[in-house]
């Protein structure tokens, strides 16, 4: 009889220990996933900044050949300041899309100015721009993948209980317009 009571206590202790262990490990993996979304987001932010830094140089180069296209330059400047003021993921994605179309128009100008097109500085900037854009798309994919994993984990039972306790909420994807690439491929 005494033995049976001890057994029950032991089983309860074991079950509690298992649940506790599961809770801790789930909690830790959620924290890791959360960190992952932050670090992958930081990379997008980084590259957006890098692109913004390239723009004044690019605009000045184009201005040297096509001064009168002020509309286009204003658009770019506007998109740039909008992006600089953006804080949330959605705002940044919005700013990105606006910048994308403004840059697309800026680069389209180049098509009308053969001298600009063959300017080595312009070509170098165009390469840098294309590279940065590609980095953004790589970073975007990595960020969205990590958000997908995170969002699934906090929604699915039983880890959803832990997520609820910790106050984790669904994160937003970095979604961009499906429009054409801002930087045209350099063709020979």
């Amino acid at each position, binding site marked *: 009889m005494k033995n049976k009571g001890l057994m029950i206590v032991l089983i309860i202790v074991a079950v509690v220990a298992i649940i506790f262990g599961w809770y801790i490990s789930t909690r830790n993996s959620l924290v890791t996933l959360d960190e992952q979304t932050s670090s992958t987001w930081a*990379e997008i932010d980084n590259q957006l900044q890098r692109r913004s830094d390239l723009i004044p140089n690019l605009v000045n180069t184009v201005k040297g050949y096509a001064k009168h296209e002020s509309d286009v330059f204003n658009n770019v400047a506007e998109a740039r300041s909008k992006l600089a003021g953006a804080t949330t993921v959605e705002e940044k994605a919005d700013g990105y899309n606006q910048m994308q179309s403004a840059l697309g128009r800026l680069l389209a100008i180049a098509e009308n100015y053969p001298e600009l097109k063959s300017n080595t500085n312009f*070509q*170098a*900037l*165009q*390469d*840098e721009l*294309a*590279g*940065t854009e*590609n*980095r*953004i*798309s*790589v*970073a975007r994919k990595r960020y969205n993948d990590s958000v997908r994993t995170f969002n699934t984990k906090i929604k699915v039972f039983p880890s959803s209980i832990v997520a609820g306790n910790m106050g984790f909420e669904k994160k937003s994807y970095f979604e961009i317009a499906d429009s054409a690439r801002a930087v045209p*491929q*350099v*063709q*020979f």
Partner: protein
Amino acid sequence: MKKLFLLLLIFIAASTFADDIPGYSGYVNDYAQLITEKDKTSMEEVAKEVEEKTGAQIAVLTVKSMSPYTSIDQFGMAVAEKWKVGEKDKDTGIIIILTMEERQVRIEVGYGLEGIINDAKAGRIIDNNMMPYFRGGDFSAGFRRGLFKIADIIGNEMNVELDERTKMDNNVTETLCMVIFFIFIAYIFVMMIRRMNNAKRTGRRYYGSSFGTMYPGYGHGRGGFGGFSSRGCGGFGGGGFGGFGGGGFGGGGASRGF
């Protein structure tokens, strides 16, 4: 158990089929068959040397088509993520990729080399070192010049002396090798005549095995010539490729259509 094993096998087979990125077998992976054997050897030797001296890894991939990928940027990134070219943690890897059907070429630069070869520089390497040959249809030479240029830049930036070959054209090396080779042959010839004359004088016959004893290396087939390949003369294997190291990529580099 047997069934489980079979299922596993099928699963593995299916997953490899589903994977659209070709594997690698060395530094140069020429699936589109554009690169001559000679260029492949010298490129692999240079890549090997760069790896030994700097840790950086240079890979080459040509494919007939990159389908189902629609842009060379995405394809390049997928290759980079699968191959993981470059030293782990340092991420010093670089891949030159060409897809024949889509007529695209790209230099994919790993994180650790982005400082040395930025996007503009990658673009210039394609424009100045590769494109002139591509336009003439000589892809092999274009790749050779591109890879040598990259090796040269990495060598300079990391302060290591690379074989002079990266600076001169293959043809120069080749001429030099030919000259050395002819001197070697001429030497053998002269020695043989001398010995034959000697033999006549002393009345001994001098054919047959004499050749092997005079020049032991020659008797063992390739053994005697082995020394050439390290100087870039022969076609005797680049050898000693140890796989890529686990480098990371972030999408740096440049692409062109040709």
